[in-house]
């Protein structure tokens, strides 16, 4: 099976769904707010010792959460500007011979555990902190966006492209005005996957001084404080669901009319 065909099978296709109702839109934020409220009440009800107070004060929770969002957004931004143009290039006929090798590289990026990449950067290149974490996250999350971009472009019906060319539109025009708009839903599904991967994986950044909610989780683990672990884990989960929810809305908004 050629790599492109394999990619087509693995690609995450967007769920076809109708535009949501107002209640549908409100359900997730209300649910997440309730989760946060229960977490807050639970932590409030506990008798916190000095270690827990140090990890669970408002300032450290806000700063780690904000850092986590930055890690996720910045790394996903780089994933998009690397993977989407690359996906476009790799679906052009003249790059056919490089397709296999570049997909293999992207596959390796996802196959190597992020903690391995981060440790390697830290030990071999003494490269730590935010930038280092972004490199690790990007390497891990490029594949789904790249794959979905390629699949999205390849699934456009050949006859539509020919019709476009027949009407005198240039090759670039066909790409811009026909192929890409038709591929947008699938590309967005890939971006959404990358975002979720990055929210989860960014917890590892705590090991290389890049902060994020992983810092809370690791603090809880290393000092054996369940309340701290739970807070870090729940906040990460809430953030993941929130970002997934926002990405879902973005999909609804950005999907070309009529698709």
């Amino acid at each position: 099976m050629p790599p492109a065909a394999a990619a087509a099978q693995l690609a995450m296709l967007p769920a076809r769904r109708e535009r949501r109702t107002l209640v549908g839109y409100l359900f997730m934020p209300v649910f997440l707010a309730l989760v946060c409220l229960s977490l807050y009440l639970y932590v409030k009800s506990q008798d916190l010792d000095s270690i827990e107070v140090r990890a669970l004060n408002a300032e450290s929770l806000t700063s780690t959460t904000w850092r986590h969002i930055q890690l996720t957004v910045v790394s996903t931004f780089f994933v998009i500007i690397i993977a989407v143009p690359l996906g476009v290039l790799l679906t052009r006929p003249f790059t056919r011979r490089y397709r296999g090798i570049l997909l293999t590289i992207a596959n390796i990026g996802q196959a190597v555990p992020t903690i391995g990449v981060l440790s390697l950067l830290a030990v071999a290149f003494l490269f730590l902190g935010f930038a280092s974490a972004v490199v690790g996250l990007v390497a891990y999350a490029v594949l789904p966006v790249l794959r979905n971009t390629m699949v999205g472009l390849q699934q456009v019906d050949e006859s539509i492209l020919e019709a476009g060319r027949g009407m005198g539109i240039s090759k670039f025009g066909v790409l811009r005005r026909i192929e890409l708009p038709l591929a947008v839903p699938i590309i967005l599904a890939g971006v959404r996957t990358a975002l979720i991967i990055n929210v989860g994986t960014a917890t590892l950044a705590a090991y290389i001084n890049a902060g994020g909610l992983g810092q809370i989780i690791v603090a809880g683990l290393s000092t054996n404080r369940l309340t701290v672990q739970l807070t870090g884990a729940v906040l990460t989960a809430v953030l993941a669901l929130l970002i997934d929810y926002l990405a879902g809305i973005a999909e609804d908004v950005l999907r070309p009319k009529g698709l």
Partner: protein
Amino acid sequence: MKSRSARARAIGAAGVILALLLTGCGGDSNDEADPGGGGGGELSGATLTVGAKEFTESKVLAQITAEVLRNAGADVDESSLSGSATVREALEKSEIDMYWEYTGTGWVNILGNTTTDVPDDLYEQVAAADEANEIAWLEPAPMNDTYRIAVAGDFAEENSLATMSDAAEYIKANSDDGVVCAASEFINRDDGLPGLEKAYGFEFSEVVELDLGLVYTQVGSKCSFGEVFSTDGRIVANELTVLEDDKAFFVDYNAALTMRQETLDEYPSLAELMAPISEALTDEEITSLNAKVDVDGEKEADVAKQWLEDNDLLG
């Protein structure tokens, strides 16, 4: 702390330790052809089991002990156990006869005290309290495997840093050069970073949070100061200088051989036999033994035997 520090360390040196587990723990040092050795034979006829925790230092100490016992005529059954809780349990249940425990672990993990009420005569208190559990603590070694702050060797020399007080002065005078690399546990524990800063009346200018395994290699590059375990072999490997805790802030983790009281009653010569060994185990000595295993990849058993021979400790 000991059990957790051990876990962190096990992660840091995972490759090395795993390799050793795979190749080195088959009781390969059991020199069956020579059960008597050249010692006095005070223990001939005895069969003793020596246990260890899951990290290098504990295994080296167990191997040293096994070698000494064997040399005194005992039959030694070595078992490598994992985890602080299980090795102590194994001792209480007579699955093993002895292992090296740390005074700090005894105080906090075994006797259930906190790190804020540590007495000055920690060993005496722990040994006395553990009598109730019928566990005997032999005289502790000078080696103290606890938290310390380390700096790069040349950095220490340039700025003549030898103690934590020197470091506190230096950081107060050079507020832009007070970055410390540390792992999460140290950053969050009361007997770690927060307490240390309070005790010496200074504050690090920045805390770089890393996995413990990464700290050793970063001292001298990302940060001038780093949290280390005072007898870790990587101190030697990375040419670090350990700063003396001159205000005795950190909890002591002196190693002492522990055994059931009945074992000591049955073989009272054990105390006498182990005393010179224990006395010779200084921070420097054990650090270099740890380095031979973790850094040079030698086997614990070989390192132990070599050390005993070099120091003329096999009677």
